Structure formats: C-alpha cells, structure tokens
C-alpha cells in the first residue's frame, strides 16, 4: 500500500515540479532576459542590446508586460515560482525599494562605483538608493518598504522626467491666434477659451481621469505649487485646518484649479491615460496633460511631434513663484533580480546603458529622456521636442518636484484622494469648500494611521 501511495504521490509531485519550478527566466551566460512595463522601451532596448551583444557576446531579450498593474502582478507571481528575469525595469524609489526589501532584486551598492554614477545627472544619482527618509519610512507598520537597509541601492536610472507637461496641437493653437505658450494659469485658461471659440467640438483638455490621481498630480499640484510656494503647498497636506485643503487657502486653490472645468474634453473622466493620449493624437482634444513620457505614446500613435507645443503647467499670475519650472526625477530604473544566473552580465548591461552615447540613442529611439548628461545642446542628441523639455527643467525652490512625497503621510493613496478631487472637477457634484473638507478628512485618516 505504501508503495502504491508513494507512486501516486510521486507522480503528482513530479508533475507539479514540471509545471512550477522551471528554469527561471530562460537566461544563461550568453543570454539576459529583461522585463519592462513600457511598450515604447522595447524597440529602443533591443537596439541598445545589439550593440551590447557586439561588445560582450551576451544577447538581451526584452519582454514587455503592460499595463503597470499587470506588470506588478506578473513580477509577484514570477517571484513565487522562481521565474524572475535577469533584469527588471522598475518605478524608481517605488517598486525597486519594495522589491529590494522583499529580496526580489539584489543590492547594487557595491557594484555602482563613482565612475558609473558620474555618468548620470547630479540630481538623479541618489535615486534608487535607500536614503534615511526611506529607511525611516520602512520601519512604520504599514510601510511598503519593509526589509530595506540604509545605503542599499536597488536600481540605477534608465529614464528621467516629470509630470505636469501640457501638450497642445500647434495647428489649432495657431488657427485660434495663440502663437506663444502661456506663462500663467490665467493665460492658459484664456488660451483654452480662444481655442474653444474657434473650434467648439474638439478643443478640450484630455486627461486620463479614469485613474483619478492624474488630475491631482499632473495638473492641480503643479499649479498649486506655483500659486503657494513650497511651504504653503506642503501645508495643504498637513493637519492644520488653517492651512490645509479645508482652509480658505485650500478653497482658493481649488477655485483656481476649477477654472479649467468648462474646457475638459467631454467624457475625459471615463478615459484611462492611454485613451486620453489617444484622443489627443486622434484630434478629439486640443490639449493633453501628461508627462515627459507622453511624447513617445503620441508618436507611436501617429501624432507628428513637429505639430506639438509643450509647456509646463503654469502658475497663476501673482502667485508665490513667478518662474515655475519642473524638476526632473528618475521615472524608471533597472534592477537586477536576486535569482539571476548571470549577475555579472546583468551588471554589465546596466552599466552599458549608462554610457552617454548609448543612453542618448536609447532615449531618441524611445522618445524618453535619459538620466545622463547630454551637454548644453540636448537637441542634437535627442531631437528638438525632447530637447526643449530638457531645457525647461529646473531645480531649487522655484521648481516643482513631483517625486518629492516627504510632506505626505505614509499609506497615502493618490488614487483615492484624486477621486475626491474629481467630484469638484470635472464632475461638479461638490463645491470647492466641500471638496476641500473631503480631501482633508481623507488625508487626516492617513495621518491617523501613523
């Protein structure tokens, strides 16, 4: 009987093993597998991979899994079954630290030396490392970063950029008599009105509000930062009812933001980010709010980059910051999985992509901004549109940095906060004061969890 049972169980176990524990990512000494969540990066990485193969003999296979949520689930499942690839593209200072704390990706702090780091722009060199702020955050009960240690590095930058870039259809602006990009929020609203008067049907602003955080983070926040300056802006997320969203200042910010309400593209609240960008590419809207990464998607979908005017979300006239700019931060990075069989090859690949010429070629192909220093004339390396975006980057207190979340409570969920904001605009189901109170109530609940 025991023999029979053993046979039955053995066959099951063998079968299960055959299904589950495979050989990981299919990598070897001569092949690396890299996963990305950006379709627009696949071709550019493959092109870079050809040069890498010539230099090292190692082939790089790039596989995309989209959208971001599906990518995370894929990584989660692969980690359970031991099928992680050699290299993963990650959201820097987010996924990379979570994966690192969980032991999915390896610590690169001993591999990334100063020579390698110097190839990156000064302001993004630290991105991907565990700073004291992240370490302290990891110690809190609801932290997503549990397990990280001070000084570890779990990724190196691949692309940089920022949110809060307005894309406008140049032909339609010209037709409406708008010849220069607006420099104040009021000018922006006036331009929206001019275009609407000229072209009532397809003049609106598209934004993927099906993901409600976009309205909050890509449009309202940059405007509010320029209006209030850093300290008063940060206070909106605080617990002091005289300075947060429920205060008169908060109401004033929301009222200013609400001036965009008549100009939303009809139905933009039902579109996801890609669909909103697609609406702009197809001419259903004249303005599109996105980030530096949006250009690649527009070009992929047939929109001529020469017909686009880009400018950062402007600050209101008379606001705290007259010359509002946007600070770049690392959007995506690359991590090496802890289960790779070819760690040295993976490290070589990361280092190869950090070379300024390779990085520029990748950026030009992917229509994304590289983390490397392209000198004083980025146009020649990455083209005029990306070059203009790079030139518009700023630093210091007059630059809004969307990557800075130090003033927000742990466990803060921008999607839920954005959903409250949506009730004010575009949905118009709540007043600015009610919305301010709702925002404060939700943000307070995050603070209370601490």
């Amino acid at each position, binding site marked *: *009987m025991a023999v*029979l*049972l053993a*046979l*039955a*169980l053995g*066959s*099951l176990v063998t079968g299960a093993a055959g299904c589950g524990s495979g050989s990981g990512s299919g990598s070897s000494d001569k092949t690396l597998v890299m996963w990305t969540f950006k379709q627009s990066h696949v071709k550019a990485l493959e092109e870079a991979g050809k040069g890498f193969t010539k230099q090292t003999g190692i082939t790089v296979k790039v596989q995309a899994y989209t959208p971001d*949520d599906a990518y*995370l*689930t894929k990584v*989660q499942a692969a*980690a359970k079954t031991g099928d992680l690839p050699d290299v993963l593209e990650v959201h820097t200072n*987010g*996924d990379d630290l*979570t*994966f690192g*704390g*969980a*032991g*999915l990706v390896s610590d690169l702090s001993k591999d990334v030396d100063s020579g390698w780091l110097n190839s990156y722009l000064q302001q993004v060199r630290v991105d991907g490392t565990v700073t004291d702020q992240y370490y302290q955050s990891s110690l809190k*009960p*609801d*932290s*997503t970063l*549990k*397990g990280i240690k001070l000084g570890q590095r779990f990724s190196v930058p691949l692309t940089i950029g920022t949110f809060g870039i307005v894309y406008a259809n140049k032909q339609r602006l010209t037709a409406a008599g708008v010849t220069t990009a607006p420099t104040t929020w009021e000018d922006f609203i006036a331009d929206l009105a001019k275009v609407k008067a000229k072209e009532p049907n397809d003049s609106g602003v598209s934004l993927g*509000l*099906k*993901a*409600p955080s976009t309205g909050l983070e890509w449009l309202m926040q940059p405007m509010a930062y320029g209006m209030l300056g850093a300290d008063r802006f940060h206070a909106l997320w605080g617990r002091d009812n005289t300075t947060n969203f429920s205060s008169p200042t908060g109401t004033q910010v929301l009222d200013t933001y609400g001036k965009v309400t008549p100009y939303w593209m*009809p*139905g*933009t*609240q*039902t579109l*996801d980010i890609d669909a909103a960008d697609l609406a702009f590419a197809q001419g259903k809207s004249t303005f599109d709010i996105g980030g530096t990464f949006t250009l690649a998607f527009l070009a992929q979908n047939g929109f001529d980059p020469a017909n686009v005017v880009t400018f950062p979300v402007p600050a209101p006239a008379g606001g705290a910051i007259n010359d509002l700019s946007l600070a770049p931060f690392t959007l995506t990075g690359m991590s090496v999985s802890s289960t790779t069989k070819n760690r040295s090859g993976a490290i070589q690949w990361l280092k190869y992509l950090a070379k300024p010429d390779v990085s520029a070629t990748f950026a030009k192909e992917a229509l994304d901004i590289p983390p490397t220093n392209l000198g004083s004339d980025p146009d020649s390396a990455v083209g005029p549109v990306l070059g203009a975006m790079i030139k518009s980057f700023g630093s210091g207190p007059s630059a809004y940095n969307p990557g800075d979340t130090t003033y927000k409570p742990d*466990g803060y*969920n*921008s*999607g*839920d906060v954005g*959903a*409250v904001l*949506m*009730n004010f605009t*575009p*949905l118009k*189901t709540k007043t600015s004061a009610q919305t301010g109170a709702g925002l404060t*109530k*939700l943000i*307070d*609940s*995050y603070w*209370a*969890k601490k």
Partner: protein
Amino acid sequence: MSAATTVQRPPRERRATRGRTRYHRSEVAWGAAFVAPAIVLFAVMGVYTIGYGVSLSFATWNGFTPNWTWVGLHNYADLLWASPTYAPVVHQAALNTLWVMIAVPILTVLVSFPLALLLNSVGRMRTVLRSVYFLPYVTAGIAVYFAWQYILEPDGAINLLLRSLGLGSLQQPQGFLGNPSTALPTLIVVTVWSSVPVSMLLYLAGLQSVDSTLIEAAQIDGAGWWRITRNVLWPLLKPITGIIVLLNLRDSLQGFQTFLIMTNGGPGNHTNVLGLEAYRLAFLSQLSPTLGLSSALGWLLFIAAVILAVITQRAMRRAT
C-alpha cells in the same frame, strides 16, 4: 442442526459487519492510490488556498514583503467601521452593490420571462431567434464591454440615435458613463443585457416542459393569454424564477468584471462595488499592504452570499 449452522460465512476478506463492508488490505491500498491524486489536489487547490485566504484576512501584506504582520480582526473592523480611510469607501461600494443586487435580478426576470414567452410562441425561426437572443451570453467578455464603452461615449451610438430621433434632451454630453447619475444605472443595464440570455433559456426550457393539457384546460375554461400566463405559467415557473434571482443575486454581489473594464469604479468612485473594491485592495493599491483587507472583504462577501443563499432557499420552499 439448526438453520444457522447451515449458513456459510461470507469470505473472510469481504464480510459485512453491521452494514459495513470489510476489504482486503490490497484493495484498500488500490482504492487509496486511485483516490490519492484527487485528495492531494483538493488539499492543495482547495483546503490550502482556503486556509491561506482565511489566514491572510487576519494579516497585512502587500504581496512582496517577506513576512505578514498579524492584526487579528482589525481588517474586518477597518472595513466595516473602524478605519476612516477604508470604511467610507466600503460603505459607498456596499450601497452601490445593493442597488445592483436589487435592480439586476428584477430587470433580468422582467426582460427574460416575456422574451421566453414570445420565443415559445413563435412557430418559425425559433432556433434562429434563440441563437440571436443567446448571442450576448456567448460573446460577453472584454471585447463586448469595450464595444459598450464606445456606444456609450459622448459621441457614441446612443447619443447619436437620441439626437436623430429628436430626443436630444436625453443625450448625455459627458457620455452615459461619464455622468455620476447615469453611470451606475447604465452599468446595471449592461449587466442585465449579459444575464438575460441564460435566464431566458431557463424560462424557455421550463415553458417547454409545461404539460400542454394544463394550458388547454385553462383555455376551455375561458382563460385568455394574460390569464394563462399570470395564473398558470408564472406559478409553474416560480422555481426557475427563484434560481434566476439567486444566480443574479450572487453575480451582483461578487461579480465586478463589467465595472472593472468599463469604469474601474469611476467616475470618482460612483460605480465602485464590493467585488471591485476587493480587487482594487489586492492589486491596485500602489503596493500598500492591503492584501489582508482584500481577503477580509472577500470573506465578508462569502458570508453575505451564504446568508443570501439560505434566505432564498427558504423563500423558494415557502413559495413552492
């Protein structure tokens, strides 16, 4: 010699004792060997996953960190009343779910029963018509829900139709899914659209099994179409109605595919339902450790489904 002494004992290895049959060891071994794969599979796929899910509902975890943090019943309390972050969202989702649970079964019965009557009375083309009406069920899926999205857009087919019929005032400038007051009713209609085919087939099967002599007797007694339908067919088909209501209640309580694809709970959480909220807590929470909350919500839904099933079963017993 007594009769008892003449009766031979059954074979030693397979004799019945007090209603139980005893088997030889080798037979037991073979039986066990054949049953073992099923038991192991059930242990892995059933018991293990259920146990895993239950235990996860008492912990916080984001799916990546090495360890769970045990929190006891806090997840359940947070969802139901304690957390100012999660409880209001769950309450709103519960209210939306309740509307769906009321509207979908009622509308499904109201549409599918007359449709089945109509189809049952059609002499020609019955098979073709049955296939046509069954199409929504066999085609339902992601592609169809995307198609619905296009139809419901501001410049979609429904607004166009309303405009061309001179009913412009009924148009939705933001689209039927973009207006918070029409988004949930619209999703209910789409859900009903996808649930009518099976319900209609169930009714049709019931109608075709009704003894024709009952109808004839009613006709002889002078009953018209309406009277036969109301007093003969409807009572006879009550058990089927009960099944349809139960199936739709369960789908409305736990299903969220339509909501995820078409609105993702929006605009601004106005179409969030409990099943979708559980999914969002599990997979769309920006790596927050909310898998335990998701699991707890799943078990709360399970308990609600069991209670519903018991209530419906009792109601059906009384009705029949």
